[in-house]
């Protein structure tokens, strides 16, 4: 009890101190990969890779995936972007990212269709509210489920409308308007007004602040304010949220997040190529269901594009809302973790190594999970590349290790449990005017037989129109 209280107080104090500095950090590489709190604990989690196509580009991809090593399924995707229209279509049996979206400019404004979701303010009503414990802004979060159609017109002042399911089963309609940074919006469903929100923000050169106040039809409210500062390559930020624990926005209720939260992050360059990353967060889902996270990470750049990363973290409580997951939160969950990473290369060869371990007692004792990963990459001048990744992991019952694996169009956080190893061989090379990427995975957790998975994906990118 005392330990939890002191840790919570320490995390809150750190968070408040950093919040006073005022900043937002987009993310520090090297921190442990983990899915968002709404993802199932024991399942792989796919998230779209950032869209890298430029104006006038079209990308087509075909893939075959065999998650059990035998039965394969197909994946197809197409993405395009022009100066006034962009869209994406993904299709595949059992593909979590299947769906389509279309965005573009029309009639003096912008419109969206499909899984392309508008965001109001801080996402308390529409969009995904931030997770106080997250390093990244939705960095490992999928787009919300559900389809919507939206339109927004105007620049200095604007009006907008959307209609769709927006992550809920019931359809809804939203109207919003704003001028000079101040905005307001109302969401209607079959029973009338379901949510209303006002928000304002002002940002310039990466620095600024803002706030949102949202309410539902029963008068339950939630408010959030943030401040951020960018000075050169230093980024500082923090935000505070308060409100009623039963409040839910118009989006996916599993992503509502805690009603009480404070979060602060900093990414500060020091001397001689050193960067310091800090995260402090405290939150509470309900009385007696708190959580806290404090992270310190140091990155050091080395000659020849090499670098080392070392970090330490302490966690308390839960990140899952007991009201949503339907089970009580674990009591006084405490974790301490540490990690170290090195990467470098010479000529055609690149190497990387990482070790991460977590304990349930102070000073990372009482190990509950650990993972060591090494990667060898070889690139040829012709564009053919081979990469071999090997990971040895240990996780006690109830714990999972997540290994990030990049595929052609997505990042997969591979959930692993038990005491075993995973080897991944990736081949990449030009083929039929595009690039083909193949990966073979072998997961071995004794006494079970090794489990094979493989993927083959072909991607071709071309220009919609020729350069003048």
């Amino acid at each position, binding site marked *: 009890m005392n330990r939890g209280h002191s840790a919570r107080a320490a995390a809150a104090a750190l968070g408040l101190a950093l919040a006073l500095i005022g900043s937002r950090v987009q993310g520090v590489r090297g921190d442990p990969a983990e899915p968002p709190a709404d993802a199932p604990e024991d399942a792989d989690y796919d998230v779209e890779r950032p869209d890298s196509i430029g104006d006038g580009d079209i990308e087509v991809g075909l893939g075959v995936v065999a998650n059990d090593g035998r039965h394969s399924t197909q994946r197809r995707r197409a993405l395009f972007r022009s100066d006034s229209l962009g869209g994406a279509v993904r299709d595949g049996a059992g593909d979590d990212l299947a769906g389509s979206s279309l965005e573009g400019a029309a009639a003096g404004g912008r419109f969206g269709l499909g899984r392309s979701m508008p965001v109001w303010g801080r996402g308390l009503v529409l969009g995904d509210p931030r997770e106080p414990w997250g390093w990244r802004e939705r960095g490992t979060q999928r787009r919300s489920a559900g389809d919507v159609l939206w339109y927004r017109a105007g620049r200095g002042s604007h009006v907008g409308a959307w209609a769709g399911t927006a992550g809920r089963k019931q359809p809804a309609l939203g109207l919003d308007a704003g001028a000079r940074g101040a905005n307001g919006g109302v969401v209607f469903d079959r029973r009338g007004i379901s949510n209303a929100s006002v928000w304002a923000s002002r940002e310039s050169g990466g620095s600024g602040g803002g706030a949102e106040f949202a309410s539902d039809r029963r008068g339950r409210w939630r408010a959030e304010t943030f401040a951020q500062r960018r000075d050169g390559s230093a980024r500082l930020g923090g935000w505070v949220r308060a409100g009623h624990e039963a409040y839910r926005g118009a989006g996916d209720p599993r992503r509502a997040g805690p009603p009480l939260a404070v979060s602060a992050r900093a990414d500060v360059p020091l001397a001689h190529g050193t960067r310091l990353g800090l995260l402090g967060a405290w939150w509470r889902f309900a009385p007696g269901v708190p959580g806290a996270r404090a992270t310190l990470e140091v990155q050091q750049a080395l000659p020849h594009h090499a670098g080392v990363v070392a970090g330490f973290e302490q966690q308390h409580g839960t990140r899952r809302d007991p009201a949503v997951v339907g089970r009580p939160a674990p009591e006084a969950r405490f974790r301490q973790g540490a990690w170290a990473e090195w990467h470098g290369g*010479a*000529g*055609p*060869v690149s190497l990387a190594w990482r070790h991460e371990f977590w304990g349930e007692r102070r000073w990372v004792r009482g190990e509950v999970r650990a993972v060591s990963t*090494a990667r060898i990459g*070889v690139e040829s001048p012709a564009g053919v590349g081979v990469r071999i990744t090997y990971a040895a992991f240990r996780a006690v019952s109830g714990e999972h290790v997540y290994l990030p694996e990049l595929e052609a169009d997505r990042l997969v956080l591979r959930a692993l449990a038990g005491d075993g190893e995973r080897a991944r061989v990736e081949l990449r090379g030009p083929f039929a005017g595009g690039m083909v990427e193949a990966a073979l995975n072998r997961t071995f957790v*004794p006494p079970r037989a090794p489990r094979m998975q493989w993927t083959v994906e072909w991607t071709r990118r071309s220009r919609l129109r020729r350069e003048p």
Partner: protein
Amino acid sequence: MKVAKHRARVGVVVALAILTLGATRSRAQEFAPAAPEPLVMGAASMLDQALAPERRAPELVILGGRPFGLAALDAAAVAAGLGWRSLRGAAGLARSGDPAIGWSTVAFAIGGATPGAGYALRVAARRDRRSDAAIAAESGAPPDAPPGTIATDLGGGTSAGVNAGGELGAGAWIAPGRVVLLWVAHPQLVTRGAAPPLARGLECGVAWRGSRVRAWLARELAAAPGGSDTHRAGIAFGGVDASAWVEARDAPLRAGLGVAARAGPFAVGVRVDAHPVLPQSVRFECALGSAP
């Protein structure tokens, strides 16, 4: 006849127990070079750890050793390496142990190397030196068992095993700035068939290579669940013509030392590894090839 059979069984059990309990931490394999990787990379290191040599001149290596002072485990191997442009290749044959418990090994490795970096894949296949019929007769397996599958439970059980196996591994190293050497290698990324005599895990290492002094530190992950990771650290003095090194390991704590000398294309090296429980292991190496 019965006494001879009993002795053979006891010998096999003792040797396997040593291999399982003691040698798993020794890292000694059929093609393990006498000198540690940070000192010399050649055909032997390519076959043993998938660490390709930077030099491309042909090399012939003869290796031998007596693990833990046991004559029944005497081993000998021959390895050859060759390079063309940035490609590297190596092949080797080895025979370990006496006819009752020994095995034969053939290994190949292919990879590439450029100044400051190298990578390789290795493949090794092993087969017990005893015939299927001999082992089947001892273990009580049916005489019509398919070739290559025999009962290995020498305690009289009936579990069927295999007397041949293979492994595939990969490794790479980089030397940014030439002074620092970093390597990652997993000699047994995939195994098939009979379990290898020594289970080996992922090894990552770093070395500092001065003109007359070299030092290294490496960590090898446990190859089997529940095992402990091992570390080794060493320091070497001398140059290409003559060098001496000492190396310490943990789990259990022990040390090894060795010397190497070169005269023109001829090179020799000897290594002695101590063990807190078992007798010393000795390995020697004779190489013919240009200096690295």
